[in-house]
């Protein structure tokens, strides 16, 4: 079975949010809804060294995330209607708008903050991996828009081959990968913290709600 995956290079991302806005533009999203979000994650402290100098270890970095079309999705497990389902062909996790009751259970369960109920449309909306573009042989719009070439998309095998150093996403502020087994490969930047030993906080909550 083909399984599509995203790739994110934390060494390149500057947190400019072009990916997020290109997606919003393409799908004509309202200010309240973003399929892709760029999290600003930071932390650190000052400590006094032996000579009495204060040494900072503050850090900040960005992580751009949409739906990761997980192998073990939290969203499909809780969905009461089967509207949230994993497509058999490319492994993309999609919403069947005709079945969705808009209960928001998937939104609660997803630890990547990906699905959201659009009350006007009457169903949940989220990233579908630009399924139409992908079927036409193109990359998702976010990937093509990124001015730093920090994103990529393709089959799992293609991502593993093209980005040999990357690992399945397990860095903060994302949850530990074991929860849903995301199809997101990450090249972490040098300050990146592992999800299980994170000490920082998301600094731009209002932007990613």
């Amino acid at each position, binding site marked *: 079975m083909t399984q599509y995956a995203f790739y994110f290079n934390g060494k390149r991302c500057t947190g400019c949010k072009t990916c997020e806005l290109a997606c919003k533009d393409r799908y004509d999203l309202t200010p309240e809804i973003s399929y892709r979000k760029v999290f600003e994650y930071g932390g650190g402290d000052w400590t006094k060294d032996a000579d009495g100098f204060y040494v900072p270890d503050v850090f900040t970095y960005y992580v751009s995330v949409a739906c990761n079309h997980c192998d073990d999705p939290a969203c499909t497990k809780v969905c009461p209607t089967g509207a949230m389902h994993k497509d058999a062909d490319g492994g993309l996790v999609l919403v069947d708008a005709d079945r969705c009751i808009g209960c*928001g259970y998937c939104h609660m369960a997803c*630890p990547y*903050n990906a699905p959201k109920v659009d*009350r006007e449309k009457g169903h949940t909306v989220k990233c579908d991996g630009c399924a139409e573009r992908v079927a036409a042989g193109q990359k998702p719009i976010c990937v093509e828009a990124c001015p730093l070439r920090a994103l990529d998309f393709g089959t799992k095998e293609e991502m593993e081959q093209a980005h040999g150093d990357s690992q399945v996403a397990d860095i903060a502020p994302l949850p530990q990968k074991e929860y849903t087994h995301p199809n997101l490969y990450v090249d972490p930047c040098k300050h990146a913290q592992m999800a299980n030993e994170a000490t920082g906080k998301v600094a731009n909550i209002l932007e990613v709600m």
Partner: protein
Amino acid sequence: MAAAFADLPLALFSTLAPMGAGAFLILAILFSTTKLEDDGVAAIDKCTVIPVALVIVGFIAAFFHLASPFHAFAAFTGLGTSPLSNEVLMGCVFVASMLVYWIWAMSGKMTLGVRKGLIWVVAVLGLAFAWFTGMAYMIDTIPSWNTLAGPVQIVGFALVGGAAAAVLVLALAKRADVLKNATLKTAVLAVLAVGIVLGVGGLIAQAATTSAMGNAVFAGADLVSGAMMVIVCGIICLVGTGVCDVFAVRGAGAGTLVGVSFGAAVLAIVGILLLRLAFYAMQLSVGLSIMGA
């Protein structure tokens, strides 16, 4: 805490419906232990509209929470896998049994034997529905909710709120005498006490574990302290329910009974609703789920 108000329809549902369901336990104990004349039974049946209405209004509130309520029939698809499908099924079975019981009873054609059997079925299904309502929040990516303290709370609220609703039914049916009956009195007091212990105890246990958690967005301790005033007010209301109902079954004269039991029921609704909102305010994901967003 403010974000929890986005979940107000769900908080109303999980307050009113289990409360109505719990009332059938006291009614079941009543009909199995107390001999009543026909007009007494008829008056109680009429006033049973109160728990029935609580359940129905609760379900209507849940319906309004959905973005597409008219697809609701699809909600059974996830039976066995989605805790929400399980809850919806349990809720429908309970509501169906409750309506069959009540409509049959109101027709005046129900024999005492059938009544005694059927009302226990309704009561047990009602408590099972309350338990399943709590189970629906046990999601492994939300550790602050993924605890049996959740279902325990809702069963507790069903008991204390249900006892208050049932006492109001008897007061409005002018059956002050049955309330003074020793077995029923003991049953009401025991159900109230167990309900308060399970409801408040469950919530406090949950708050204590949540305080020790955190993710990249929230510290659990901040969520708990943000909800603290609401929790305290909720507990005060539930204790108030207990006090009013103790007065109702022990001392209140016919003149004050309706007022006291009405006060107890209103305090129960407000108290449970506050504690439900506090529950929603203590949602803490393993990752980035941001409540109300």
